């Protein structure tokens, strides 16, 4: 009877274990997929040089986890482009706007410098960004600097993410690193201390080293004797 009970119990534990592991392994790709799909911002329409039209939108999640990289993808589509003319996207800059701070935080801009010669051509810019620390929410301003053959001077276009919603949320769910392993002290301190340590160590282990020394001496002696006997 008892054996049967324990068998059942162990089976239960094993099945629970299998269930939890499968669930947890499943949750990983789900999380990854969720990040990938994210939220699509509303379409922004821009016009450059009176004859060239293009649209832009951003795909990125609406809640960013602190200290974790987030994928942000910017899609630029040229809708109207007269034949024979072209358009160049010079640079794309991203800056974070924090709710209580007048100064935006600039991220490293990307410079695709891509020349578009046909309509319906798409430019994609993928960025890996991290949420700013010490805030709960923020939004991103994206500046597109472009020129075209009809207006060769650079023009600046601005759009915001998430656009129709005020802010991206910052999730602080993931804990801070709880282990802070200090390295050794810098060499100046360390070699002085280690010298003191070894002096103390040698003094304290003198009895042990004496025994070791005598044992080695004995071994050498007995070896010599053996050698002499063999001869």
């Amino acid at each position, binding site marked *: 009877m008892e054996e049967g009970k324990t068998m059942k119990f162990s089976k239960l534990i094993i099945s629970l274990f299998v269930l939890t592991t499968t669930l947890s392994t499943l949750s990983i790709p789900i999380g990854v997929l969720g990040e990938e799909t994210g939220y699509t911002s509303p379409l922004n329409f821009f016009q450059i040089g009176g004859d060239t039209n293009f649209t832009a939108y951003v795909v990125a999640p609406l809640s960013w986890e602190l200290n974790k990289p987030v994928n942000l993808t910017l899609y630029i589509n040229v809708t109207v482009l007269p034949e024979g003319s072209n358009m160049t996207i010079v640079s794309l800059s991203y800056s974070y706007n924090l709710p209580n701070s007048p100064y935006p935080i600039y991220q490293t801009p990307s410079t695709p410098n891509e020349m578009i010669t046909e309509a319906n051509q798409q430019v994609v810019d993928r960025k890996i960004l991290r949420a700013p620390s010490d805030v709960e929410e923020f939004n991103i301003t994206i500046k597109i600097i472009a020129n075209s053959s009809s207006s060769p001077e650079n023009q600046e276009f601005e759009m915001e993410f998430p656009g129709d919603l005020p802010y991206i949320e910052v999730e602080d769910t993931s804990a801070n690193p709880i*282990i802070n*392993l*200090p390295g050794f002290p810098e060499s100046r301190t360390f070699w*002085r201390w280690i010298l003191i340590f070894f002096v103390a160590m040698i003094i*304290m282990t003198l009895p042990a080293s004496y025994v070791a020394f005598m044992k080695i001496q004995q071994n050498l002696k007995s070896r010599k004797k053996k050698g002499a006997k063999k001869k």
Partner: protein
Amino acid sequence: MSEKETTSPLERGTRKMDVLMRAFGMRTRIFKGSSRSIVKGTRKIYPYELNATVIETARGVGIRIQLEKLWYTFLKFIPFLLLIIISLLSYFVPSIGDNIASVTGVNPFKLVLGSEPGFIGLWIILPILGLIFIGVEILERIIRARYIQDRMPRFLSGAEWEIAEPPIVLDTVSTSSNLLWFMYVVMILIFAPLSFSDWVYTKFLEVYKVESSAIFNTTTLISILDIAILSGMMFAILYMNYEKFRGSLDRKQFRYDVRVESQVRQMIQIATGTTILATFELVLFYFMFWNNITVIQVIIFYVLTVAASVLGTWLFWQKENYIFIALSIWFFLSDVVMIFLNANDPSYSWMIICHLFLILFIVGISLNRYFEGYLAKKGMYEPSWIFNPFPFFAFVILLKKKKVRITKSVDKELEEIRDEEMVTRVREREPLTIDIDKIKKKGKGADKIIQYYQKILSRIVTGEFSILSITTLNSQILEFLREKKELVPQTKELFIVIDKLLWEDNYKLQNGSKYVKIAEQMYEIVIKMR
């Protein structure tokens, strides 16, 4: 035992003294004379001498115990003296330390005395501690010598050897002196980086992003825990080794009315001992490293020391080396805890590194156990070198390579002596058979005296006599004569003569008729009484 040995009482006494001294862990030398002999006992590792002069007198063997070479005890003052000299130098000529520090980065004064030593306190406490250690050791020796002196006559006359209850407090104090210096070395290691000169120390603080006061407080706290646990557990090792060394001899004498369960007794003794040791440490280190210790920390220190000593005793009963393993585990686990604590408070950074090396230190110390076996091979079973930062005398003895009689056989020899005594005692209880023909040859009237004596005895008791019963009967006969006091000296004289007639082979009786008369008188008195 063969018949050749055990002849004169002097020789027997000398042999017993010799065995006993070796049981105390001494190396013995014997000087023999015709009427006296001297047994010189020298402690093997920590030298001091005990002289026992055995003298043969008319009434038996007498003994006198003398202490020699007491001055060795004063060598214990050397480390205190060094510290006093260093503290004086550091106070009056601090420039020496600063100059050395500017070159090497290490101020030796600060390294040894702590970064802010309390000089006046040190000058008061160092001599006091030194004198306590010396005084206690001298007192202990005097007490032990007195014990031997008092108990020896009984031991020589056949009583079983018993040593008095060891003076526990004195014992624990002298045990503490080794450990105090051991802990001092550990303290120097822990606090060393905090005493380095500024151009080293500021960089040290920069790397760990800590303020000086924060790292100081944390280091003090952790060092209190470390020292408490180390000294508690190591005290257990040292004290138990001393107890092993004294062996079963000392334990027998523990008074019955205060006898607790033996294991509980050991724990209590060790707990009291560690309390004394903790006090010494606290008093000394307060003026050196623990300037900013709080009352709560003091309480923690005492409680943890006693708890560690009790745990150490328990571990010792399992196996001695478990204590070292337990210490390593403490250093490792506390390291892990400190790593987690360090996330919010980087002041633990130094102690985390330091603990890693202290584990190595403990491993090194535990290797010293092999020295014990090496000394044992040379016939030395003495724990006075254990945890001694510099066991000078042990090395001197080993390098001298003196041959010593091995102490291990002492128990056996003592047992042999006891057996021998048992044989004689059994003979004393056996029924006595008197050979009248043999006695007749000893002189005229000898047989008559013995016959009267026999009649007197048979009037008092019926049955067989033994030597023991005769001695008690003699004293009873003297009791009967209480009313006729003039007869007492005569009777005593008669008893001596009877003794000699019965047992001394070469005795010649003179004035036989006189003693026959006395015996007759005695018999008549006894008849009237009974």
